[in-house]
């Protein structure tokens, strides 16, 4: 049992006061508000009580303080591309605070750039000096926001060399529930920014982020390896590292995902194979040349067929296929789930075999396209959105994949966050005493549980009357 401070309930006309802060034009209600009630985890659609789009930091802080004072639950939202449902307004009581208008670039000095949370990931590099770039690049980089990236600790293709968003966060300006604002981080000791990265909007709002930029590589080269079995493909991932290569990216696609891409407008001309690896090596040209030579040798040794793109157009085509693999799923199904459990690299072959068995058992076509160097699976599981049974079947298959990953030393989420999609696994992944420590953190920042309620941590399931929601919040050992 958790004892919470009770809200200091101040009776206010929330609607009117929100409007006073952000202006009538920036308050969205009714049918239109429903558009802000869900994200890229499309299995659950919420309906916010109200959506407010503050113009700047000052309005945001006033808004948060007002909502907190009046005991109104709130959900911070960036571009709404979360794949774990962490922006879904589950109960209908939530005010969605959309931070997309906080999209300024404040400064760029040395290797640092300071931006608003609403700025799209792609625009960070665009605003950086020509010799620098921002490394974290989720496949959604053209739309997803920096606030969302920070709050999920998003990854992307270039994590193997440059790290996830965490590694690129230098400092944050955060708004806390009592209406205070703090600049945290930017120091080697006592770094208050660390806890906010990956906290899914449950501790406060990110108002500003100072991000680290990297020098652009002199050269970047791609090697494609096409293999006749998944085990050799998985083995090749570790073998690349054993050769001393630190690749910028290693992406894997299995036969199902290749087939899907080849049927779509992202068609890349991939060879017919059981699985392929796309490796990118970047940096100082002579080093890259040697890395490419070694990657080729590794692939050949393990029976792979090697392709090295001969021109930039061919290179782009190969990567476009990978980057389009998610939307390409549209050719086989109008909806699909995307999971992101992560395992040690050495467990890839075994977990992929298990994924195959699970897919067969549930009668679903699972397409695997993922960040192989990180062992970060992305099984795409199609379902029919008109059929609750089909969705339930896909969810259950997904849960088994997450469990199979955890059994192999993995964790439920490598980059998409827990949200509502994986909330049930928190009770399986953590012990009760560990969970209580996470709750202690939550309580210290959000004593009344008003910030993004039911995401990541929950004690009792939300009462929404929605069957999918109650399935998602059933603790694994309570499931029939």
């Amino acid at each position, binding site marked *: 049992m958790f004892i919470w401070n009770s809200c200091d309930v101040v009776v206010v006309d929330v609607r009117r006061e929100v409007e006073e802060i952000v202006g009538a034009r920036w308050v969205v209600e009714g049918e239109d508000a429903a558009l802000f009630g869900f994200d890229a985890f499309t299995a659950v659609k919420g309906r916010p009580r109200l959506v407010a789009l503050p113009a700047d930091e000052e309005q945001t802080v006033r808004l948060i303080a007002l909502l907190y004072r009046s005991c109104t639950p709130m959900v911070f939202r960036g571009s709404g591309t979360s794949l774990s449902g962490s922006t879904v307004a589950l109960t209908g009581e939530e005010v969605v605070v959309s931070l997309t208008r906080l999209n300024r670039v404040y400064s760029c000095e040395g290797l640092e750039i300071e931006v608003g949370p609403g700025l799209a990931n792609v625009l960070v590099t665009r605003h950086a000096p020509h010799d620098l770039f921002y490394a974290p690049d989720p496949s959604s980089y053209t739309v997803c926001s920096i606030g969302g990236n920070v709050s999920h600790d998003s990854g992307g293709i270039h994590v193997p060399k440059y790290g996830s968003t965490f590694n690129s966060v230098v400092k944050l300006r*955060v708004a*806390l529930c009592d209406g205070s604002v703090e600049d945290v981080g930017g120091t*080697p000791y*006592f*770094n208050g920014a660390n806890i906010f990265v990956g906290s899914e909007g449950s501790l406060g709002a990110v108002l500003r982020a100072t991000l680290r930029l990297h020098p652009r590589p002199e050269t970047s080269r791609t090697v494609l390896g096409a293999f006749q079995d998944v085990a050799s493909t998985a083995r090749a991932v570790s073998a690349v590292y054993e050769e001393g290569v630190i690749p910028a990216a290693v992406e894997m696609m299995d036969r199902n995902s290749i087939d899907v891409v080849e049927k779509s407008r992202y068609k890349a001309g991939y060879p017919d194979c059981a699985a392929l690896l796309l490796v990118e090596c970047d940096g100082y040209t002579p080093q890259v040349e040697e890395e490419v030579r070694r990657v080729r040798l590794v692939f050949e040794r393990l029976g792979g067929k090697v392709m090295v793109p001969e021109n930039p157009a061919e290179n782009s085509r190969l990567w476009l296929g990978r980057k389009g693999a998610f939307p390409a799923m549209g050719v086989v199904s109008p909806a699909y789930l995307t999971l992101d459990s992560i395992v040690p690299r050495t467990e890839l072959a075994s977990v992929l075999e298990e994924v195959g068995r699970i897919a067969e058992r549930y009668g679903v076509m699972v397409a695997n396209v993922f960040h192989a160097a990180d062992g970060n699976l992305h099984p795409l599981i199609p379902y029919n959105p008109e059929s609750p049974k089909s969705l339930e079947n896909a969810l259950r298959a997904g849960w088994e994949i997450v469990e199979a990953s955890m059994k192999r*030393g*993995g964790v439920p989420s490598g980059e998409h966050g827990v949200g509502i999609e994986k909330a049930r696994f928190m009770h399986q992944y953590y012990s009760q005493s560990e969970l209580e*420590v996470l709750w202690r953190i939550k309580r210290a920042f959000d004593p009344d549980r008003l910030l993004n309620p039911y995401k990541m941590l929950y004690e009792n399931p939300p009462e929404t009357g929605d069957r999918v929601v109650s399935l998602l919040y059933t603790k694994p050992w309570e499931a029939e």
Partner: protein
Amino acid sequence: MLVFVDWSDDLARLVEVRDGLNVSWAKTEVNVYPEDYGQVASVLGFASANNLSVYPFCMGTNPVGPTVKAKIGLVFSRLNSVLEVSPENLYVSAQSGCPLTSLSAELDKRGLYLPTDYTGSMGGWASTNAVSAYSTWYGMPRELVLGAKICTGDGVLVSSGSKTTKFSSGYKVWKSLIGSLGWLGVFVELYCRVYPKPEVFVSGVGDTSLLNTLLRGALRPLCVWVVFEAGGREALGAVFGGYASALKRINTSLRLSEGILKPPTLEGNIVTVASKKGLESEYAKRALSALKGDVAIAYVGSGVVRLSVKDFSYVEKARRLLGVPIIVERGDYNGDYWGYHPAVLKKLKQALDPKGVLSPGKFCLGHP
């Protein structure tokens, strides 16, 4: 001889108790030597229940910040094993008392390395978030520690993060402990990212005018540092790592030699300046003058400058002048060692060490 205090008998039932410590960086009444994680948890649970202050430490090689006076010294020297080295997954797990020299030897046998030149224990390295020349390319422990088993101030063991390269499955508790000098909780076991050891290392020294080319150019050195002396002398050093065939083609006006050069070691009173990344040299020069220091080392790309200073008389003035965190890393200072005290840290302290028993006075925020 063991000093008997009324609670020490009870403590001795949990763990081996010995004489305390009386050195410049810590004073403790007794020291305890846990041999497993359960004992660490029991000691902290006991201390918390009895409001006894605790100072966690191991080798004492790199104390940072003010001297701590505590009832109990929690010594990690017996939790000193390397647990697992995974060349395929490129991680190592080790207990927090494991000396980095032992760890490096283990890694070396398998052609791997942890990019740092820190010489204390794993727990000390993470708790001090120790900068090194390698931070230019690889970052600091903040970036390198993938996960850990930690213990809260009231004795709850928590696994946070994992051996995987990424983790978005709950609050990053272990990351908050990095650089927090044992004030929020203690590390008992750490999982760190390691790298294949480059085939060759080549070091270079040269003119500081090369700095920008090194930092933002094609070569991507692993280490770049600049040393500034009070008399106006400046020297730049860099280390490159990679395949022999590649490194022999480096075209630079640096004077190159094979092997690893290191920046000088600072002695005496030390101040850390948290500069903007990529502007460490500018901040080093300004800090050297503002603090009237002797030597400044800019760890280029890391956002850290360290200086040796005669005394700390100019710390407050330098803080106002430079507008970035300036920290008294080592030495006796009557003022505020940190110069910043965010409420976020206070909230974390409340959550992770509710009785405020850990490292009292290390980072004050109304907590003991």
